């Protein structure tokens, strides 16, 4: 099961104002992988997700989807919950189905299931302003799940939440992932979160945006609180943080060939 679901080859993205957001970026994302992108702000993490989602044109390079996969089965979760304030929780969650032309009655079960997954049953009729930050994020995740996607792109989804909410949502997300086996591409600037969640962490550097390290996290799932306290966890965090600081100080980090590392890890 090692064939890549999404292959990014030699992606370069220059924004119209001349910012080189990404340069010669290569990345092969395996099916069912939980992969995190970490790096300083402005290193192009969001841009990678946008390119994968087809939001905006690449300057050069290409993105290949393996057979049986397509952008159609993809969902995006943004840093802000990005809910429609004028719509109730259930109408927010229904949005992707409504845009696809699914009728109200036909979408009812899917909406209820999605809300159930994020533990928000009973809040259908609430408006976003009545919810806490963590609950809004859950709604946002339910909206992403309602189309039963196979690829989940998450751009610092828990960045704006307090530590306790974040850690609870982390565990919930992992539980869901092990159940559904999505391919998740998760952007964060929190190293600990990345190590806890992922089975692969990609470290990026800025100016121009590029991959500087590719670290497989070989700890088994389900991951518990014990994993967070284990020496292995600390070792991974240390490794990634040194890759980040080396990249920031301008030294090139010795990077293993991503493909070889991926093979090793599986």
């Amino acid at each position, binding site marked *: 099961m090692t064939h890549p679901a999404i292959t990014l080859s030699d992606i370069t993205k220059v924004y119209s104002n001349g910012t080189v957001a990404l340069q010669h970026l290569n990345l092969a994302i395996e099916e069912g992988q939980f992969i995190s992108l970490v790096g300083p702000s402005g290193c192009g993490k969001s841009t990678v997700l*946008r390119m994968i989602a087809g*939001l905006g044109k690449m300057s050069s390079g290409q993105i290949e989807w393996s057979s049986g996969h397509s952008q159609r089965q993809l969902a*995006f979760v943004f840093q802000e919950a*990005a809910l429609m*304030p*004028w719509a109730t929780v259930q109408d927010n969650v229904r*949005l992707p189905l409504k*845009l*696809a032309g699914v009728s109200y009655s036909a979408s009812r079960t899917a909406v209820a299931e999605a809300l159930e997954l994020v533990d928000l049953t009973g809040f259908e009729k609430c408006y976003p*302003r009545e919810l806490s930050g963590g609950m809004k994020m859950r709604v946002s995740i339910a909206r992403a799940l309602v189309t039963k996607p196979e690829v989940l792109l998450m751009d610092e989804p828990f960045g704006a939440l307090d530590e306790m909410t974040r850690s609870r949502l982390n565990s919930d997300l992992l539980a869901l992932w092990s159940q559904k086996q999505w391919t998740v591409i998760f952007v964060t600037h929190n190293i600990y979160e990345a190590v806890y969640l992922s089975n692969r962490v990609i470290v990026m550097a800025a100016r121009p945006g590029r991959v500087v390290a590719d670290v497989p996290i070989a700890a088994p799932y389900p991951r518990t609180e014990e994993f967070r306290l284990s020496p292995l966890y600390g070792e991974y965090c240390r490794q990634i943080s040194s890759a980040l600081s080396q990249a920031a100080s301008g030294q090139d980090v010795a990077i293993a060939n991503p493909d070889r590392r991926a093979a090793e890890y599986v």
Partner: protein
Amino acid sequence: MLLRQLTALILELQNLLMGRINFTAGSDRPNGSIPALAAKPIGKLGTAGLSGMRQLLSADLLAPVGVGFLVLAFWEIAVRMSGVQPYLLPGPLLVLQTLISEWGTLFPSLVITFQITLAAFVVAVISGLLVSVLFTQSKWIERSFFPYAVILQTTPVVAIAPLIIIWVRQVVPGDNSTFVALVICAWIVALFPIIANTTLGLNSADHNLINLFQLYKASRWQTLLHLRLPSAMPYFLGGLRISGGLALIGAVVAEFVAGTGGTKSGIAYQILISSYNLQIPRMFAALLMTTGLGVLIFVLLTLLSDFLLGKWHESAVRREN
């Protein structure tokens, strides 16, 4: 139910008196700006009648009303003591008497002015909305036409009203001619705030949501209907409130220019005639009615706005803290 509406109305009047007028939705009414009332969400006032009454009697309402009474009393006393002639400055009691005795002649005029205002307002809302939607369909259209909307706005209506009246007389014969001309004048004044606010609103949809719609391959029409229009709602309603008052001002100004024209004459005509005849108390009474109509329009539009934004927008929800 009635009590609740009444309370809401009084609250709005109170906001108005204290000069808390929202010009755009961008500058939301500050939360909890009415400390004594902010303690309870407005929706609960209907059920908690007693505490509602107590709140009505709070200093926030008593203070401005008290000031109003003091000023009126001072005015009345000053007029009586100094013996100023009523044709220079009538006292408030005389104005009130005149208002009652002249109601039969003044009110029909007010109704005519109101008809002009309403027609202009409705046309302005519909045309403004359409123009804004057109503007947001392409930057190119907006760039080319927005300056002309500004020019229309900055041209004083007094200056072009005579021209409009003459032109309309060529096209629309008979009694309706003046009415149509006045509606056009008031429409010109009322249009711009709606265009400006709605265009801003349509363009201010959350960019993450725009991306989301793009991701789910939403059509232009779906994006407009489900994203841009709802996002523009608070801005549009803000524009509506300004525009309602301006439609009235536009109608009155145009009536002044039109003079007696035609058989049906609005309130401005009554003000003019009263001043020619030195019936200053009557003039004050007509003025009072016009102002009252303006306030009424504003309050109604504010209630509409709060009703429509009710559950979701900051400006309409009174927070508990």
